């Protein structure tokens, strides 16, 4: 299903359909995450990938056209790079432990301590939240700072046209 959706996205020339199919792709990813018991991630994928990104894509489309330009040359080099990278990635997955393998390194590093300590030390049942906001609090602070920076950047680039429209547009053109 994912592969079919991805191939259709590549073949499509109408960007409107591509935006909608990307939303479907995100929903499929979310259901895979649910199957893998990663409910928190599935939640985020469904809300961000399928919801907000689709809306932002549609809004961006209303500012541009919805037809992709047909390229004059066939991008052979790009295709080769993509294929080589894909083969390398597939080759690398051979070394990964199978899904659910209890001997996988990820289950033996810090996870046992998090799982054992969270109920007594932090007192909340959702270990994902405790890792996210407590054990890995610095990382999450960094993530929020990234989102903050992205928002400020978009607001500076797109939202600052009110005061002096002519001068602002002129600067953008240079």
């Amino acid at each position: 299903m994912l592969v079919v959706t991805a191939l259709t996205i590549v073949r499509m020339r109408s960007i409107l359909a591509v935006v909608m199919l990307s939303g479907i792709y995100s929903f499929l990813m979310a259901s895979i995450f649910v199957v893998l018991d990663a409910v928190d991630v599935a939640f985020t994928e469904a809300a961000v990938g399928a919801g907000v990104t689709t809306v932002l894509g549609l809004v961006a489309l209303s500012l541009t056209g919805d037809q992709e330009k047909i390229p004059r040359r066939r991008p052979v080099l790009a295709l080769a790079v993509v294929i080589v990278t894909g083969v390398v990635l597939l080759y690398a997955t051979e070394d990964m432990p199978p899904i659910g393998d209890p001997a996988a390194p990820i289950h033996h590093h810090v996870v046992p301590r998090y799982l054992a300590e969270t109920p007594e030390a932090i007192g909340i049942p959702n270990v994902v939240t405790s890792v996210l906001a407590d054990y890995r609090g610095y990382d999450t602070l960094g993530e929020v700072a990234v989102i903050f920076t992205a928002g400020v950047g978009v607001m500076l680039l797109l939202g600052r046209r009110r005061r002096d429209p002519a001068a602002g547009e002129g600067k953008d053109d240079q």
Partner: protein
Amino acid sequence: MTELLILRVVAKFLIPFILLFGLYVQFHGDFGPGGGFQAGVIIAAGCVLYGLVFGLDNLRAAIPPPLVRVLVALGLSIYAGTGVLTVLLGGRFLDYQWLAHDPRHGHHYGIMIVEFGVGTTVAAVMLAIYCSFAGRGEPER
């Protein structure tokens, strides 16, 4: 504002539940799946739905852009401020056990406050990005 009656009625009916669900995800994130990121996006999605159906001007009237800008910074300040507060109370940066007498409660409070900061920033940033994009095409229309 859209002319479609069904869309308007359904949106009006759904938006309070979307926002309520966002708040549930926000403040129930320590017991079930969810947390600040998801809640922020859900709340922003509810507001974006309002903007799509009832128009950008009504959305701006409901949530003024200056308020959104303040919220963007406020969320990050809540998070970082919690870290500074724990330092002032004698611990390390983001070491929540100093927030209450019982370290467990301290951790719990810390997570709640920090997740609230995350949710505020995420919701406000999503809304600000949507408003920036949607407001871009207005003068041409």
